[in-house]
């Protein structure tokens, strides 16, 4: 590939431009990642204390605890919530989440799928794009897609509250969430979690019976506490996916910058080759011309 001098020079210029863009995008993602991680950290004290209250109440109940959100029933209608990003350029991040969701549906809800009883709700646009193009046998719910860009707690809890109500009045018998769990900037784990019904809560046998006044009684407290915990865990999946998105984009853009560098190396060699060739030819012509004059 020893194209003309001018062509090679132009290609080098365009690759350098692309490289600058990918480099900038990587830095932007790094900053956004820090912010997204901050939101997760901010939530931790609240989550810790909520869980402490839960375990205190459980330690005081004899036998297992069940609430209206924990009742298992025959699963006819399923809701799968898929949380993806709104934008691309983050490698296979969104595709991996979608594949995880398909694997979950095939494995756990094959019968419901044949009966056309699987509903899929999207938060974030990319998941919707992926599914709409490939499958026609799900009921799609797309009204909550924009929530991804506005993850204020109040806003998100409106959405999770609506899904809890749908579970309570029997519209769905199970709700699953598929999202990108954030491990670190370089690792995102597509994860499927059963959100409803709530898995049975067991008390920690090592924990001593807490000596508390409970107001109202434990059972009623549990009924109030569980929805808050559900809302919080729904919110957490969204925040996790956002942090994961920026992590994935950072990695993708870093890779792209590296690739551009390699391409540039090759192009520069080609450019120098072409330049030397041109000089050699020119010299040959001059020498040839001089010899002809002398002759």
């Amino acid at each position: 590939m020893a194209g003309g001098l001018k062509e090679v020079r132009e290609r080098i210029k365009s690759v350098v431009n692309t490289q600058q863009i990918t480099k900038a995008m990587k830095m932007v993602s790094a900053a956004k990642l820090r912010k997204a991680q901050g939101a997760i950290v901010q939530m931790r004290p609240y989550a810790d204390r909520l869980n402490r209250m839960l375990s205190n109440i459980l330690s005081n109940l004899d036998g297992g605890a069940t609430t209206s959100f924990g009742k298992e029933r025959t699963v006819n209608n399923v809701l799968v919530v898929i949380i993806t990003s709104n934008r691309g350029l983050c490698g296979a991040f969104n595709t991996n989440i979608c594949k995880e969701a398909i694997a979950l549906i095939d494995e756990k809800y094959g019968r419901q799928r044949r009966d056309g009883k699987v509903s899929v709700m999207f938060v974030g646009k990319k998941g919707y794009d992926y599914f709409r193009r490939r499958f026609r046998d799900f009921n799609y719910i797309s009204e909550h897609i924009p929530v991804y860009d506005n993850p204020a707690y109040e806003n998100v809890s409106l959405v999770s509250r609506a899904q809890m109500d749908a579970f309570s009045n029997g519209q769905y018998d199970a709700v699953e969430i598929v999202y990108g769990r954030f491990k670190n900037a370089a690792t995102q784990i597509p994860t499927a979690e059963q959100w409803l019904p709530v898995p049975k809560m067991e008390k920690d046998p090592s924990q001593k019976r807490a000596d508390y006044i409970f107001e109202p009684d434990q059972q009623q407290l549990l009924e109030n506490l569980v929805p808050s915990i559900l809302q919080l865990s729904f919110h957490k999946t969204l925040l996790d996916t956002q942090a994961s998105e920026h992590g994935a984009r950072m990695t993708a853009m870093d890779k792209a910058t590296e690739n551009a560098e390699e391409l540039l190396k090759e192009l520069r060699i080609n450019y120098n080759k072409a330049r030397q060739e041109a000089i050699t030819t020119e010299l040959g012509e001059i020498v040839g011309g001089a010899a002809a004059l002398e002759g």
Partner: protein
Amino acid sequence: MNLTILSPEKEIFSGDVKSVKVPGSAGQFEMLDNHAPIVASLAKGEIRVLTDKGEKVVFNVEGGFVEMLNNEVSLLVSSVRED
């Protein structure tokens, strides 16, 4: 006693207080120093705080939970407005 008010998004209040009155779902009650350990859920209403310096602070909440243990009060609220 020490009071911390937390929402999922941030810490709203933290500091030493003389008393805190909360809208418990079974009725309003007030906690002072050395109150017995308690866990309670809250209804919509006002949280009235009297700080050690004598300042009065009022928050409006839509609901939440309160726990008190060893003079540490944690108030967990989902949406809150300061008056």
